[in-house]
């Protein structure tokens, strides 16, 4: 259905829509783009205060970097997480926010979702760049690991686009998806080693049976994304190849599922909105 010519004009539209998201986001706010950095910074301060100083969560030392700063440990997990959360909720709202456009103009609708996620990707890259500079000031020479970080961001972008496509179109059909998602995100946040190290998760015994909790826990792809990012930036080591392979499989599968569901439900979109 989508011809090549359509794809090339779609690319320009994608770029323009992404720019629209980015430009529109902080228009009319005094601090403008700095909000993109101030937000994770504020979260970091709050979490550090609560979890490090009140709840006294132990700080995992970077292996082999030797870094032992909770704020950095936290940010390495928080940034990929924020990307996922913002990308997903943003994608979910975008079809409804652009209902008028969908009802009046023909264009490949998935562009709206992709543009929204890409705008979040751009934010993530800026945040990561600042984080990398800060890490280097504190002695973590992350430069050799940056190409791997880029690969991870690309991979996670595919994953988030998949989730976004799926959720955005479901949300048009069932508006309570967004309420469900806000609960899901809370659960998902604590099921991901962002504020605590992965080493705290251990298998358990239940009525004499060994429950492979750690294995189940690691099925969560966000565990992989957060851990891999932390390996690159905090620990300064190459993430385990097995985990990377799992991330590739999960990302591609999620993307395929998202595309399949979106394509199935897309034709009726203009009526359902």
């Amino acid at each position, binding site marked *: 259905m989508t011809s090549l010519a359509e794809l090339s004009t779609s690319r320009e539209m994608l770029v323009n829509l992404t720019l629209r998201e980015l430009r529109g986001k902080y228009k009319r706010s005094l601090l403008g783009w700095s909000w993109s950095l101030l937000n994770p910074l504020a979260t970091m301060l709050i979490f550090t205060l609560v979890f490090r100083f009140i709840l006294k969560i132990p700080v995992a030392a970077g292996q082999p970097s030797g870094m032992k700063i909770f704020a950095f440990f936290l940010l390495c997990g928080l940034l990929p997480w924020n990307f996922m959360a913002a990308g997903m909720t943003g994608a979910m709202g975008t079809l409804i926010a652009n209902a008028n*456009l969908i009802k*009046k103009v*023909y264009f490949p609708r998935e562009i709206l979702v992709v543009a929204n996620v890409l705008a979040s990707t751009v934010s993530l890259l800026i945040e990561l760049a600042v984080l990398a500079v800060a890490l280097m000031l504190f002695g973590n020479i992350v430069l050799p690991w940056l190409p791997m970080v880029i690969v991870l961001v690309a991979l996670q972008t595919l994953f988030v686009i998949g989730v976004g496509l799926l959720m955005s179109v479901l949300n048009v059909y*069932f508006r309570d*998806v967004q309420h469900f998602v806000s609960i899901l995100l809370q659960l998902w946040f604590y099921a991901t080693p962002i504020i605590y190290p992965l080493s705290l998760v251990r298998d358990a015994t239940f009525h004499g049976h060994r429950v492979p909790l750690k294995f189940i826990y690691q099925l969560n792809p966000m565990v992989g994304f957060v851990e891999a990012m932390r390996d690159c930036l905090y620990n300064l080591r190459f993430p385990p190849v097995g985990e990377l392979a799992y991330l590739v499989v999960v990302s591609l599968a999620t993307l395929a599922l998202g595309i399949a569901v979106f394509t199935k439900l897309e034709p009726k979109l203009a009526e359902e909105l």
Partner: protein
Amino acid sequence: MIAGPPPTASLAPAVVVEGVSKTFRLYHERNQSLKVALLRRKRATYEELWALRDVSFEVFPGQTFALIGENGSGKSTLLKCIARILRPESGRTSVTGKVSALLELGAGFHPELSGRDNIFLNGSILGLSKKHIEAKFDEIVDFAGLERFIDTPVKNYSSGMYVRLGFSVAINVDPDVLLVDEVLAVGDEQFQRKCAEKFADLRARGKTIVIVSHSLSTVRSICDQAAWLQRGRLKLLGPAPAVIDAYVDEVHTERGPEEEAAATATVGARWGSGEGRIDRVELLDEQGAPTLRVHTGDRVTMRLSYSVTLPIERPVFGIAINTLEGMQVTGPNSREAGCVPDRIDGPGHVDITIDRLMLLPGTYDLTVAFTDYSALHPFDYRHRVVRFDVEPGEPRESFGGVVSLGGRWSLHVPDAVAGPAEAAEVGVAEVDVSPGPAT
């Protein structure tokens, strides 16, 4: 105005609509919540509503094609199917070449962004490359007349500016096929003229235009082919003037007696100081019988029956005839016609007799006024008090406009060719304006 060139048989159609059917769900109880969906095991109860039923036609390159019909007849749905915004349940639509749809102007503008940014954004949504937009940029801004405001966020635009910019971007996409839904009437008169010129230019360059419109006079003046949709079905397809005439005939016959009564009742507002009142306004045909349906060229009398509560000196009566769009066709009064009595002190009536009604087919509203000699102080002013229909008669003119000037046509042939110098004079009634091209 004469219709554009007829399509040559060798051309492939620019737009194909083939057996298109589209249903909408008419929800009895709309719900978009999972809970209810799970409980009922279905999303909601609804009725299937056929918006389009097995519609087929072709539009050839260079044609200006109109979709006409009453509200809810499926015109706009069909246009959206052609634009691929809606997907039909069965059948298919295909368009050859680049399509631009003028369904809503400025859809996709971001309020916080400047006009400049929005031109690029909207242009790319409509399928323009950045290079193309850059090349067209000045033309777009100039056409919209927004040079001074192009770096202002569009949220600060007036609605007219907003629509003008939207139109300007959409029309400058340089489409092969342009789909237009009732957006011709945007902006002020000057902008409308520019739009009309742009449409004429597109047609002259052989672009295909499909237009949905309620304004039959517009359709008549610019379209060569038309499809009449009735409750989702294709009722008639053919040259625009013929289809419009058939449509006007049917729609007017369909107006039942109650509706006619309703049409006689006051349509618009009434005001005035009340010393004199216009009690009844009638349209009389040649035999003097009241009617609401006349033909072009008929002898028609408008009778204003009045009464007074006080003797009135030098009263003036006036009428005005307007199109439904609000354009005033004429507005004569008795003072200018030199028909002012010194004084009236009882009921009576005023007749305005028109020997040949030169209004072209359409629906018109009659407004009447009863005023003092200055014509500024109304005793009774009845806005749009009678709505009447004019049907095709003589002179017959099928290519738009509101009035016929009743000109006489004559063809003068040079001696060498036609022999004796004799002008072949043709009476107005016999003029045969060539109909639009047949498919």
